[in-house]
């Protein structure tokens, strides 16, 4: 079906004549006969807009979204409120439809938002330099691994088991051809085992990867963990949750070399996992090894302030096989959502929202610890997420809660064999005390129900 094109039969005839050919087919004659498709694509015919809309609306209605249930799902992406202001600005054609700012004279809007975004990330992480984003969180951590691999010839990565399981797996995937062994540092009492880390460190360690807070929601003692990493000359990488950085000491306070993280919580939608962005900030020494686009300030021929893509000699289109990364673009629209959101939250708001999460999370943890059949998985300080153990089948409990319109959290067993009874519960500013009380009530009922349902099996076993 003709859609989004304008050429009429008359246009086509005039254009073909101007080109000097008889037919459209003639334009494709450079394709050798042996590889021409001699049939139509086996896809349904095109449909009118209203039918496509109706079909997609029907598909979307089969998803249970965060609007359809009381959700405590987190595990890396969080249901924060996205202000209408963000939607309004990111919908603007001027931001939505251009490409990478290759022509800076007509791309100052994009370049300036990148510069502002970089400033905000630098402030949040306490690190002097930030790029203009990478694809998303886990691959940003992998990119830090590639930086380390290019920086020094060392053969081991150490990664805390508290780092997001997707990021750990992504690092393994990406490093397959790097000649670097990836070794996991276990957790003890919910946080990275400092003794195990000390034992594993050595002068062959290229980089060490930690998370703050870690995947179980626990706040890591970076002050204790980072110095040993620096002493052996390894690059210290910390994956962090930007929404906690109004309250938690930033990675820059601990001399961390590179901070990365998932950007979704900063004004981006859930979108079933993407698109979002990954942030990447570092110490000054790594500026010329940074992956990704970077906007810089300069002036124009008449002395006006302006912005350009800078330090491009790091990048693939110039440096080719010696580039710091193969990435071509930035997640600019997602970075825009982030800088608008961070401007909206503001200097006081980022602290207030962090405090609110801290207090409600503390309340929720106490409330759930009081539920029969629920105990804390660890007792470390937490700020926005915490882990519990259930004395009942976790999936059964989740199903029972779902039947009451509550999604109690993320089952840890999918990623941690040792915690197959674990449930990870996330709190945002959108979950009120009333919501938390309801979770405790529904979870209590579900655990009791699941335990009763399990009992006969145990007897026969």
């Amino acid at each position, binding site marked *: 079906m003709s859609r989004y094109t304008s*050429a009429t039969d008359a246009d086509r005839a005039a254009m073909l004549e101007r080109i000097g050919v008889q037919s459209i087919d003639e334009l494709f004659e450079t394709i050798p006969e042996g590889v021409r498709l001699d049939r139509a694509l086996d896809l349904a015919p095109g449909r009118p807009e209203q039918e496509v809309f109706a079909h997609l*609306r029907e598909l979307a209605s089969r998803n249970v979204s965060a609007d359809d249930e009381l959700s405590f799902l987190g595990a890396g992406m969080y249901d924060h409120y996205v202000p209408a202001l963000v939607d309004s600005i990111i919908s603007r054609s001027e931001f939505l439809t251009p490409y990478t700012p290759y022509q800076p004279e007509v791309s100052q809007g994009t370049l300036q*938002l990148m510069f502002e975004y970089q400033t905000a990330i630098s402030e949040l992480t306490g690190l002097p330099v930030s790029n203009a984003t990478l694809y998303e969180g886990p691959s940003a951590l992998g990119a830090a691994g590639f930086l380390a691999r290019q920086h020094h010839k060392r053969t081991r990565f150490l990664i805390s088991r508290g780092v997001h399981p997707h990021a750990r797996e992504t690092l393994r995937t990406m490093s397959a051809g790097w000649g670097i062994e990836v070794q996991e540092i276990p957790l003890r009492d919910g946080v990275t085992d400092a003794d195990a880390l000390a034992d594993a460190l050595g002068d062959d360690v290229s980089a060490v990867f930690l998370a703050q807070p870690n995947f179980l929601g626990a706040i890591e003692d970076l002050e204790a963990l980072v110095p040993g990493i620096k002493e052996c000359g390894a690059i210290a990488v910390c994956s962090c949750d930007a929404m906690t950085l109004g309250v938690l000491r930033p990675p820059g306070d601990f001399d961390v070399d590179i901070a990365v993280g998932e950007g979704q919580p900063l004004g981006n939608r859930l979108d079933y996992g993407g698109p979002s962005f990954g942030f990447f900030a570092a110490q000054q020494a790594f500026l010329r090894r940074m992956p990704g686009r970077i906007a810089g300030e300069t002036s124009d021929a008449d002395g006006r302030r302006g912005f350009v893509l800078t330090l491009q000699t790091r990048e693939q289109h110039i440096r080719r096989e010696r580039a710091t990364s193969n990435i071509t673009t930035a997640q600019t629209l997602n970075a825009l959502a982030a800088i608008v959101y961070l401007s909206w939250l503001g200097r006081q708001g980022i602290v207030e929202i962090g405090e609110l999460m801290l207090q409600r999370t503390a309340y929720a943890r106490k409330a759930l610890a009081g539920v029969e059949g629920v105990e804390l998985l660890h007792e470390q300080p937490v700020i926005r997420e915490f882990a519990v153990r259930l004395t009942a089948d976790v999936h059964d409990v989740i199903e029972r809660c779902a039947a009451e319109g509550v999604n109690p959290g993320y089952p840890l067993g999918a990623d941690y064999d040792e915690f197959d009874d674990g449930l990870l519960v996330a709190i945002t500013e959108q979950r009120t005390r009333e919501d938390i009380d309801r979770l405790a009530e529904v979870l209590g009922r579900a655990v009791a129900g699941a335990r009763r349902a399990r009992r006969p099996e145990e007897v026969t076993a």
Partner: protein
Amino acid sequence: MSLAETPQQRDRAKTIFEKSQPGRRAFVAPELDVPEDPDALPERFRRKEPPRLPEIAEPEINRHFNRISKRNFDLDTGFYPLGSCTMKHNPKLHERVAALPGNARLHPAQAPARAQGALQLMYELQGALAEIAGLPHVSLQPSAGSHGELAGVLLTRAFHEANGDARTKILTPDTAHGTNPATVTMGGYEVVKVGTDDQGGVDMDDLKANLDDEVACLMLTNPNTLGVFDENIEEIAKLVHGVGATLYYDGANLNAVMGRARPGDMGFDIVHYNLHKTFTQPHGGGGPGAGPIAVSGRIEPYLPRPQVVRRDDDTYDLDFDRPKSIGRLRGFQGNYGVFVRSYAYILSLGGDGLQEASETAVLNANYLLARLKEEGIGEHLPVAFDRLCMHEFVLSGAPMKKNLGLRTTDLAKRLLDHGYHPPTVYFPLLVDEALLIEPTETETRETLDGFADAIAEILREGAEDPEIARNAPYTTPVRRLDEAGAAKRPIIRQELE
């Protein structure tokens, strides 16, 4: 040459941080409705000084971003013939369907049983992409073209290693996008360049000379970055497979051939798609995009996990049980919001519409090329390879530089004063003073004529007074920027008091 300053030029750039005033705010925090626990966070973990984010009220945030937005050129407003980027119209329906709460508000860790609509959409998109590329197995996971390339190189490694075959080199043509060689390095291989013949295709002698059992893969774009379909593709595939290597298709130029030819039928083992190019995800100032891959049967066992599958009971699921998989390339399931838009596009056009899109893209490119061969233009900007092109073509500005003393960049900057986004410039590298022009199918004949007329006018003007173009642009929010100075003394964040 000088003009009076436009209002936009007079409006000197001020960042949002510079508009901040202590005490101003937009956010109103929800009330603390739980008893405050003073011991919730030990003091040693607590940040001492809040990050210096802007302090500013909503009206000013709104005005700031609206105002800077107007300092952008965008596709919705004007012609954007940026070669190899496929700047086609972004249908507004796509934004509406992506924003449906069932999509935009769906948590990525939602149980598959409660995300059946999303999984079905992904499964059907996989099927449609497989049919378009002529390769049976699709993973939607990679986040961009470059990420798809990395997936392809890692798949190649897994495939060879499973055969006990450690290889060290990957071939890329000298016309390739920079991402190809950069990806090869990230995948832990050595890059070997292959030359281009006088028709713009792979130099077959050079290819043969470089092919041996150390070669893991040849990465190709077809049609290539010169807009030329490589007529030797069948023989290339035979040679590459003959030494046991894989053949990788960079899908940057897929918009030329939908419904006319398929990479799978050409012998490619692995393909990546750029959903933000061919399948019209808005480019967003550089992103987001998505770079799904399709592979042949022998590569399938190594695809990233999880895979979206349909179970025997007709439900959809995420399959993690893939023991040979290279593993994850990123978190969760990929850029689902992009999948929704591209799926809407495929449904709207259908098979026949996609074919017509490619045909019109090629028609538009050849028409514009014919217009740019006219007297007054052609002698200054000859086509790099004089034959029918596919969806894009390359001109060389070398004669213009010699005849008129204008560089390609001068032409590009002067086009800005005419209200056009310039083509891709100085790429591909092997053409001197290159201009890579891709009009796409969604532009009218009148737009193409207007663009050709503007180029003719700039060249006429250049013959009279080349200084005008050399100092262009004049009407943009800022004029030519000092990029060298920016790189020499990098200022990459706002300094704050």
